[in-house]
């Protein structure tokens, strides 16, 4: 399940946020602290997770301390989805 979430997130980020269809992200690559995703895209990412999996990520959680990589975000989504 987690791998599926990572794949979908990867596709969303590369096509919608980075606009680079040729790029694939490493699941452990730092997205926020590495400067790949800015604050606007983070909100978009939270909305995408909410619409796709019904996993609510609070406004106070959109930072590198809560999640910084695809793997960490997928884990958070899995937990929230289960709840």
């Amino acid at each position, binding site marked *: 399940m987690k791998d599926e979430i990572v794949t979908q997130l990867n596709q969303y980020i590369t096509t919608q946020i980075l606009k680079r269809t040729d790029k694939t992200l490493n699941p452990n690559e730092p997205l926020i602290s590495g*400067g790949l995703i800015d604050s606007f895209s983070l909100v978009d990412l939270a909305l995408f997770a909410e619409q796709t999996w019904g996993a609510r990520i609070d406004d106070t959680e959109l930072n590198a301390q809560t999640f910084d990589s695809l793997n960490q975000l997928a884990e958070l989504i899995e937990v929230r989805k289960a709840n």
Partner: protein
Amino acid sequence: MSLTQIFIFAALGLLAGRFYKVFSRNWLLFVASALAVFWLQPASPVRNLFFILPAVSLGLAAVVWALTVPADYALNKQDASAAGSLAGLVLLLSASRYFDPVCCLTASRPPQMEITLLVVAVLAVFGFLVYRLGRGRAAFLNFGILLIIAILIVLKSPSLAEWAGRGIRGLSGQDASLASSIDIGWLGFSYIAFRLIHVLRDRLAGRLPQVSLRDFVTYIVFFPALTAGPIERIERFAPQLQSEFHLDGNRLLGAGRRLVVGLFMKFVLADGLAFFALNPTNAQQVDSTGWMWVLLVAYAFRIFFDFAGYTHIAIGLGLLFGILLPENFDRPYTKPNITAFWNSWHITLAQWFRSYYFNPLTRGLRTGNMPPWLIVMLAQLSTMALIGLWHGITWNFLVWGLWHGVGLFVHNQWLQLTKSRSAFAAVPSQVSTLLTFGYVSLGWVWFALPEPDNAMRVLRTLFGVGA
């Protein structure tokens, strides 16, 4: 904090580190933080205000705790001891006015006991009523947030602060015509207020961890972070109080390193640069473009070393007591763009604004039909305007905030443009770092100079226009 105060706090950490088997670290931090609120508060021209403001800081922390506990919360012995200790400490400090050898921890001689008793009684009754009638209720929590914002606005706005100063002078029987905007110098309130809003807002969202009164008050007024932050989050702070702590060699070394770096940055580099950093006086004396840039660059480094040095000191002191405070700076002047700059300058303030203003606003606007560029512009400009106004509700801080808002918006649009068009070659990083530093430095002109005419004159001189 003065050098002496920093050394006394460090000495306390070193000494206490040997005795945590004998007494509790959490009670020590609670008592030390409560006393430090009084000790660090400077004198005020308004009678007794230097004593009443710290008492209200503690009272406000206790009231907000009472407001945020769960509806079915039952007060326990430790909470009662903490509440009693707070009242006892305030009364004891007030009583010190009668004992010259131990007087005074405060800036002046504390007020007479009956005044202190009245202040403590009012705060206690207020806290009790809030606990009985309002705890956990959304209307009360929202009202609390609005009240704190209203106090911040009054304190930060010169005309309102002067008006409030007149009122308080009237109450204390002093000449109201002598009131000024700096009468109410409430130490650390900007930071206390943002911590309180954070817990109230997280309580509303159902995300606030349950914390005892003792640890809550320590979090709000933790002495290393009282005067200049950083703005820690309670869910990161409180668990650190629960874990066991021994001040071993490695920890001591880590804390010592941060303190030495911080003291050097603040008291050597920043204070040294202050001699020729841009200020309202030298701005009017310098006519050459080159020298004006020297003043401006000196100011840019002075403000960085001052604030970053202070953060090192706060983190170093925190480490001596087993508390790791968050970083506030990450080499901001080496960043290649303004977005990266704002991810590394006053990090905890920027993060606070993202959590409680920028993200909710963007989320709300994103779900409508507004074009993305307009959302970016509205969110960036308004967030940065508010960050500017947090420093003071005056035109120069507003312009400083908007200057950065425009920079962030332009950078965002540039990224959108270059992202889909690979023909745009990336600007070499040294050039972009220099450009970013230049942009940030020009922003400091507004920050350093409250008078518009003076700021415009400096900008013209910097560019050799009509100097």
